[in-house]
């Protein structure tokens, strides 16, 4: 398997708080890598460092064997044209309609005719089952719909690499499962390499090929979901089991 993403000894601090400490990681072509961890353990920071929305304090990041941290803005923007990024809150441009949101990357990076753009927009909306939302403003959409449109905007450029920042957070279990299945389906049909930051176990079980657990700024465990779940480490057992709830029920 080709290594698409290679991270070597990345560290990132905010003041005296060391969020990432000497993280090294590789993601293979076509792989779905899930990043687990408690809130505030630096999962999103790791994702943002990879796409250089944040600059790490030290370390190296390679995407397709290209040194991301050594790139100038033009080279970086050229590389980013192959990225899709689904933000936690979907980050739809709220002054634009759904159609304009979806057309935005197409107009900026490709020379499609208006008819070709229209076909692409309708095709991705069909993929996320939201054809009727085409002329709506983001403020008229529910949380789940926003996530779907955000996903549609990310995949409209046929990205090679997809980054998901908590794709199911804040959604009800049914919508959460639907989004997870949609991500899996898109990954299979578009053959993308993905990194998914989440603490939703159901989502991870549906889409993960491999997973890592971040704790205290380091990778404490790497492997399949079942490897992580079967670990005897107290932190991992606590994370994946409902022991806390059982303990609470027993005490009461």
């Amino acid at each position, binding site marked *: 398997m080709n290594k698409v993403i290679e991270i070597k000894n990345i560290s990132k601090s905010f003041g005296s708080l060391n969020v990432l400490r000497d993280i090294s990681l590789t993601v293979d072509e076509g792989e779905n890598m899930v990043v687990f961890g408690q809130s505030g353990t630096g999962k999103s920071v790791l994702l943002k460092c990879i796409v250089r*929305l944040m600059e790490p304090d030290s370390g190296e990041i390679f995407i397709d064997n290209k040194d991301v941290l050594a790139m100038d803005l033009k080279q970086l923007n050229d590389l*980013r044209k192959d990225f899709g990024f689904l933000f936690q*809150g979907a980050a739809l*441009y709220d002054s634009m309609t759904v159609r304009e949101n979806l057309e935005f990357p197409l107009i900026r*990076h490709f020379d499609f005719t208006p008819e070709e753009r229209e076909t692409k927009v309708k095709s991705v909306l069909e993929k996320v089952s939201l054809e009727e939302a085409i002329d709506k403003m983001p403020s008229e959409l529910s949380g789940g719909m926003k996530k779907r449109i955000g996903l549609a905007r990310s995949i409209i450029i046929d990205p090679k690499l997809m980054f998901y920042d908590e794709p199911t957070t804040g959604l009800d279990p049914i919508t959460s499962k639907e989004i997870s299945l949609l991500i899996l389906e898109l990954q299979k049909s578009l053959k993308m390499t993905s990194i998914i930051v989440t603490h939703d176990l159901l989502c991870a079980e549906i889409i993960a090929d491999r997973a890592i657990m971040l704790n205290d700024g380091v990778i404490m465990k790497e492997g399949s979901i079942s490897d992580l779940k079967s670990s005897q480490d107290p932190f991992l057992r606590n994370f994946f089991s409902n022991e806390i709830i059982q303990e609470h029920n027993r005490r009461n």
Partner: protein
Amino acid sequence: MSGSKNKTTQSSAFEKKLNDFFIMIAGLWQFQWQFVKQIFFPPYEIEQIRKHMDELGIKTLPIVSVTGFIIGLVITMQMHPVMVRFGAEAFLPGAVGISIVRELAPVITALIFAGRVSSGIGAELGSMRVTEQIDAMEVSGVNPFKYLVSTRIFACTFILPILTVYVIFIAFLGAYIAVVLVQNMTYQYFIDSVIKSVTFGDAIPGVLKTFAFGFIVGIVGSYKGYTATNGTEGVGKAATTAVVVSSLMILIFDMVLVKVTLWLWPAV
């Protein structure tokens, strides 16, 4: 004991404010350079600039119209008794005209523009920052500074002089009505007096300095919004501080520019 603790807290709060002030000055300087570096290179984002000029002009037009009219009217009514006292009633239209063209219209329009536009830009970009829309733009390979910031600064810089020229004419209308009310002067006499007294040497510096004022409004609003943090609280703060800082900077720059323009285009 508690007195010394209070003093330490006050001194550290002052240090923080001073530190924030210098960070802002450095940030504005950096923004200015980035703007200059990016505006001359493609893509030129003409469509965005046109859209912002349209929006900013239309947004500000009603309020500057009302203010311009009232300023012209009030300044004439205030100056009339003074001119009568000195036996210089005939010079009233000229004196009012020069005051409006050289100082009142440019500064008042700029301050209203700052209040209306700087806060709007601060809130809009601040909201885009905290909801990760700017990050989304950046990660999709689009330069958000150029698309969102440079276009707004450019639009502000060029729309404010146009608004100022418009306000000058509206203020003249207010002044004429006041002159008719207090002095029973004919329209022809009023126009002749204004044209005789107000020269291009008065109009050029007045309008030229509004380019600088427009730039200040654009850059301060954009800087405050683009660097907003701390969620919705940060957005509110960005909008408020954008107005305060840009208004203050307009007045400080006006002080400097008055001296420069009087040197370049002497009033006598």
